[in-house]
């Protein structure tokens, strides 16, 4: 996006996606190649501004010469690769991943995932009504964001955004085992007591609304969260000289949440506490 006078000579690789040859820059992923080929690939743990962690396995493809299915988000495209994205094996694997995630967690606020579940015929209900599901109180510990673990699919994106992919705060990590696996602060202390600096970058990357801005949570509780009536306006944060871009989500002429575009060169979608939450004075501020 930014014009830079010195550029590296770009080399390309060509791979076959579902029989179609696609040319992408060297270093691009198989997922990038699929996207370039116009193939819609489900992803949950992947984000363009985070390092792939291969947690969810929903983006797998079948690759010639590979015994196992390959996660397309993290596998670099190499010249001459041949991948299939729509084989029975791929469809079955994606369906199972989506079905298992849906069987234990609440995906009602993850429209993308619900769409893929329909596409792949994932039916969590076939595991019975008495299947084990997450059932925890929503953690509301401050007025900036909430944690609803019933919705958490353990994709790891929040841990990455808090850690060395963006914020370098390392306030949260994976804890526990098996069904007790949780993203947690150290010793599960409250967020205000933890190392959290409230940049909200974890909230921004969460694919299921398990992490949710308090403003959105309150409006949803009141039955008044109406995404279809919202506008998104791009502007620039006022709090320092970095020039972070903000997307102001507005409903009924009020800001209801703030995000930042992943594709903007200045901060790639990441913000600090002031940019993410410091807008409330526009509407007169919080009582405090």
């Amino acid at each position, binding site marked *: *996006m*930014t*014009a*830079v*006078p*010195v550029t590296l000579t770009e080399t390309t690789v060509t791979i076959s996606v579902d029989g179609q040859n696609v040319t992408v820059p060297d270093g691009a992923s198989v997922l990038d190649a699929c996207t370039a080929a116009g193939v819609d690939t489900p992803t949950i743990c992947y984000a363009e501004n985070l390092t792939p962690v291969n947690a969810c396995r929903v983006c797998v493809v079948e690759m010639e010469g590979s015994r196992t299915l390959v996660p397309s988000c993290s596998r670099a495209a190499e010249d001459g690769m041949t991948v299939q994205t729509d084989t029975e094996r791929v469809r079955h694997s994606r369906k199972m991943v989506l079905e298992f995630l849906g069987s234990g967690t609440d995906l009602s606020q993850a429209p993308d995932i619900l769409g893929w579940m329909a596409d792949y015929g994932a039916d969590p209900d076939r595991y019975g009504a008495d299947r084990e599901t997450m059932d925890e109180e929503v953690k509301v*510990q*401050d*007025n*900036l964001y909430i944690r609803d673990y019933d919705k958490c699919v353990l994709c790891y994106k929040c841990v990455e955004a808090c850690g*060395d992919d*963006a914020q*370098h705060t390392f306030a949260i990590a994976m804890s526990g085992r098996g069904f007790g696996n949780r993203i947690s602060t150290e010793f599960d202390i409250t*967020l*205000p007591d933890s190392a*959290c*600096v*409230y940049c909200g970058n974890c909230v921004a990357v969460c694919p299921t609304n398990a992490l949710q801005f308090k403003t959105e949570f309150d409006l949803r509780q009141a039955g008044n969260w109406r995404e279809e009536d919202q*506008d998104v*306006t*791009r*502007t*620039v*944060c*006022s*709090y*320092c*000289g*970095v*020039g972070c*871009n*903000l997307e*102001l989500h*507005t409903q009924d*002429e*009020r*800001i209801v949440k703030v995000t930042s575009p992943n594709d*903007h*060169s*200045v901060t790639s979608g990441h913000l*600090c*506490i*002031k940019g993410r*939450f*410091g*807008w*409330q*004075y*526009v*509407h*007169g*501020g*919080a*009582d*405090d």
Partner: protein
Amino acid sequence: MTGLDNGARMYAVDPRRTSSSKFADLWLGLELGSDVALANTVGNHIISKGLQNDAFIEHSAQGYAEYVEAVSEYTLERGEALTGVPAAAIAEMAEAYATAEKAQILWTLGITEHHNAVDNVLALCNLALLTGHIGRWGSGLVPLRGQNNVQGGGDMGALPNKLPGFQNVTDPEHRAKFEAVYGVDIPAEDGIHLTLMFEAMERGEINAAYVIGENPADSEADINHARKLLSGLDLLVVQDIFLTRTAELADVVLPASVGWAECEGTVTSSERRVQRVRAAVPPPGEARHDQDIIGELARRMGYDWGHPTSEDLWEELRSLSPLHGGMTYERLESEGGLQWPCPTLDHPGSPFLHGWLWEEDLGGRAPAPFSVVGHQGPKEELTEQFPIRLTTGRSLDMYNTGVQSGGFDSPIRYGEALDINPADAAGLDLVDGEVVLVSSPRGSVEMAVRFQPDIPVGLTFTTFHFPELVDINQLTNDAWDKRSGTAEFKAASIRIDKLAPSTDPDTSELIHA
């Protein structure tokens, strides 16, 4: 941080051990106000090791011999004595800087809010010239701006001696160009900056002020003095989004709107990137856009400017400022902002400045000058009566006098407190959270102390975000640099006195906002 993850080295120079310094290869905790001494010591060490960039100096700089002579007295030993930084640390940073393929010096108000601010900046410029870390991709001198449009304000001519695009008020050709478009005569002499305005108020030469979007009744150093002067004006007009302390003093308050959420326009970031801001919500009540208010005032004064859009105003600016000539709204939108200079529509913008230093003929310019600057230290010396240093700054979740950032419920906000090293506190027989009387030669405030091991012995720190709780600028020093007009917020001398023992130990009200 990505750079550090990729192996970049970082040296943090700050009197306080800040959170940034914890990510650094080395923290150089220098004495308050010893920046020139540190820079000169670094320069002298680079020269003594023969690590200077001789070819660059020969080709692109002048005054080198004088510089070498001037810094020769800043040996590592003297540098350590003046700055309090171990000689080995200074040497390591100097060598790392000089031998790096690319290196940047970044700074903020710790350099510029001093009585010798310009010397501090020049001392850093010297290091860039000495090593050739300037005018190249990835190298340079980077003053980080504290607001989204400090850069843009200057670019647009909100300086007493400049017209938009850094064209000179005193240059008849520059003036004529603007006069032709504006249709009025422009005064041929430079105006005066904020600090001089206060002095002019004191002499009775200024008796009216029109303050837009600033809160000087809370933000100025030696605030009691500033408030007295503002109160003594015949007319004070304040245009702001809130009824700030300054607005409370005003004869007329013009309710404005939020620049980045209720208005169309542009802002310019630290890296000279011009970007669009857009209106997302309408202004409340009777609030209006700044440009409408100014236009309406002009109309009452007999000039009808019509109702130009922000893009109309920008187009006029493009026609007058060569730096911005190539920046249409359409390009700003599609290219994610553009960095000036961007003179023509086919110009990609400029990610860095001063590339001319590397051109064969220096772009027809004179070589860049080294500057001879010496150590002075803070204006206000420590005395028996005021034996402790005070420096002020910001915290992560707050902003300036808190008018804006006070509007959200931050879980990491701790209110106002005087950070002090536990050893100093023990010497004064204080307990953590105790409310004390803090005094400088200009005033006294009551505030709680907060034990903070990252603060060096002899230094105290507080933010200035909660003037309604602690009026800290009663203490700060308004001694200012005659060249930049900036006051020495960063270094005052204070004393700490215990309050009467009957004081209620429950200090929560003072600690928590």
